[in-house]
């Protein structure tokens, strides 16, 4: 790719991405298992009453689409940050233990402590943060190099995964309750879930923009970044914390949605290059649109049954990513 192509593509991506986000918002409001006429949708949004249509549009679809947008934005931002910090385009939030920590906390809550199930988002969020802190500390040795973080992550993820599976096997008659959450989905998410995640998501996304410059410099290598005046170890720690905050927020409400954190930033990178001044906003918008659209599809395709959105994302996304990889492979 030469600079002309890249500039053209950057303009295109940054033009289309916001449009996609708005389109996915509108589509999410209009589509659903229960058909609602456009005029009723308008009515629900402007002069809300108590009819089932109003409830469906205002209390089900609207918060759900918004949660989908935020979830996708947070996951994509988290993945983008991690890929930069680890200098590895194949990094994703799972590497720092967010998914496994949240999963374990959720399994324990739902299987062993169902009387605390209303605390599920908080438990998952805490689990995500704690496990990434543990992984970071395990890899610390006067500094935490990306290689050590990955290794510590592999070890802890394996351990947590084993514990989780152990609990599920020992209480195998109870796992019906857990499976939907583990596959990632937004069924039944509403305003109170949105209000739980909104503050963390907003803070995280704003901080993601501040992270652009440090990540760009970290990508040059630890030595080069230090020589340019960056406090490398401090930045790396803060960035990983930010990434786990973002991913933890997303996972606490939406369950284990994988794939977005890895694929979206990587696909955008293949299209417009490594500069985070463009990569970050594009990933955030792209991730938001992707999850919102996927969720809309997941809840309409098999009406009245809902498909977990994590599964749909994987099934559709993997082939698309492979295609993208092949097309762009000659340019590196």
């Amino acid at each position: 790719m030469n600079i002309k192509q890249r500039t053209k593509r950057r303009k295109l991506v940054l033009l289309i991405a916001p449009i996609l986000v708005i389109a996915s918002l509108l589509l999410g409001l209009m589509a659903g298992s229960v058909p609602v006429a456009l005029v009723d949708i308008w009515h629900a949004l402007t002069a809300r009453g108590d009819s089932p249509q109003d409830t469906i549009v205002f209390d089900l679809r609207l918060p759900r689409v918004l949660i989908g947008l935020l979830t996708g934005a947070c996951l994509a931002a988290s993945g983008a940050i991690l890929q930069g910090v680890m200098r590895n385009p194949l990094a994703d939030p799972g590497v720092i233990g967010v998914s496994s920590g949240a999963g374990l906390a959720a399994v324990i809550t739902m299987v062993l402590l169902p009387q605390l199930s209303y605390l599920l988002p908080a438990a998952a969020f805490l689990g995500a943060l704690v496990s990434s802190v543990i992984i970071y500390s395990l890899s610390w040795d006067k500094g935490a190099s990306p290689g050590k973080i990955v290794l510590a992550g592999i070890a802890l993820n394996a351990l947590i995964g084993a514990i989780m599976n152990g609990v599920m096997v020992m209480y195998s008659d109870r796992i019906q309750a857990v499976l939907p959450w583990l596959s990632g989905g937004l069924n039944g998410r509403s305003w109170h879930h949105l209000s739980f995640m909104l503050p963390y998501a907003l803070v995280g996304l704003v901080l993601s923009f501040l992270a652009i410059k440090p990540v760009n410099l970290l990508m040059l290598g630890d030595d080069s970044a230090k020589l340019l005046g960056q406090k490398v170890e401090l930045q790396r720690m803060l960035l990983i914390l930010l990434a786990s905050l973002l991913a933890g927020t997303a996972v606490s409400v939406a369950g284990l949605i994988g794939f977005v954190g890895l694929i979206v930033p990587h696909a955008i990178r293949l299209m417009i290059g490594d500069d985070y001044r463009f990569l970050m906003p594009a990933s955030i918008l792209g991730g938001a649109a992707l999850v919102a659209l996927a969720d809309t599809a997941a809840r309409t395709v098999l009406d009245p049954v809902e498909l977990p959105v994590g599964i749909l994302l994987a099934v559709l996304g993997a082939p698309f990513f492979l295609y993208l990889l092949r097309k762009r492979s000659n340019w590196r």
Partner: protein
Amino acid sequence: MTAAETKGLTLERGMFKLTDVNAIIPNGKITAIVGPNGSGKSTLLSLITGLSSPDEGSITILGKPAEHYSRADFARTVSMLPQSKEFMPNVTVRELIEYGRSPHRSMFSQRLSKEDQDVIEWAMRLMRIRRHDDRMFHTLSGGEQQKARIAMALAQRTGLLLLDEPTTYLDIAHQLEVLEALVSLNRQQQTTVVMVLHDLQQAAAYCDHMIAMKDGEIHSAGDPRTVITKGFMREVYELEAKVSFDGHYPIIIPVRKQNEEEQTMIIVTNTSQIVKGSGDKLVERFDRIGKVEQMEGFLGLEVLWTQNLKEYDEVAVVTRWTSKDAFQAWTKSEAFRESHKHRNIPDYILDNKITFQEVKIKRNPITEAALGETAAQ
């Protein structure tokens, strides 16, 4: 005021070792650091720039201790081109050089100021890569990439620029381009330049001050003409060479040396305790040991007779061989077996012990000619 000074710098990290290094980098001049591989040149640079910390010792930059600089301030004072080529992101040449401006830009600035733009242009022109400014970095040749990386360090606009082997992987044309550019930089901006170079001749030709290192210590420092001598070549590079100067340019012609294999030596010591006064009997016996001088790999034989011990005499027979196999070949030979034919141990031998020792030796015979020349120095 010197550009940089180190006092008593000591570091030990596995392979890398520096011992009590007191280096002085003169301000406003070009300094070259030379020495064989593993002598600590890169380590010294990384200590000066703060990429690693010493076990002992202090570093002063422009009269101020290095610790007193904030990270950002330091980046505006000292810049370096590291040796290793780390992960290069997918950016254009201009964008790469832009990164060099980051110590001068605030965290929130999105656009480059006029000053930033000017500096970037200047850096590109100095390194003669202006025409590549919009090309993707990874599409450049090795030489052009190196120039671009130097331009990124230049964009930091520091008073002190360090370069670790800037010319090592370049062809001669690019090497000279880079060196000329550094000289221009020094003349125009009075930037202090420190570079680690392998090519002694280039180093001497282009620098004002030379520091030579060996085995983690500074061997000598000063004007290249006083530093590079025959003795210097021998001591630092362990090379025999003829040294002369054509103006500033040294001419170093190495003397081809024979292929020297590193050899080991096995010392076999046979120690016997003998009834007092009867030591000579054993010595006599060994005098008769057959034909050892004809064995392959035989390096010598000594007999040591200690008589001043109270209870017994001690006789040690030391034979030296090139390998253990050579020794064992001797013990299996006809001559040896014959001389030990009578199996019973003579009664005057109280005790007997054999030890083996392997010694790594390197032989550098001091020749007459070399002796003569050293005297003449």
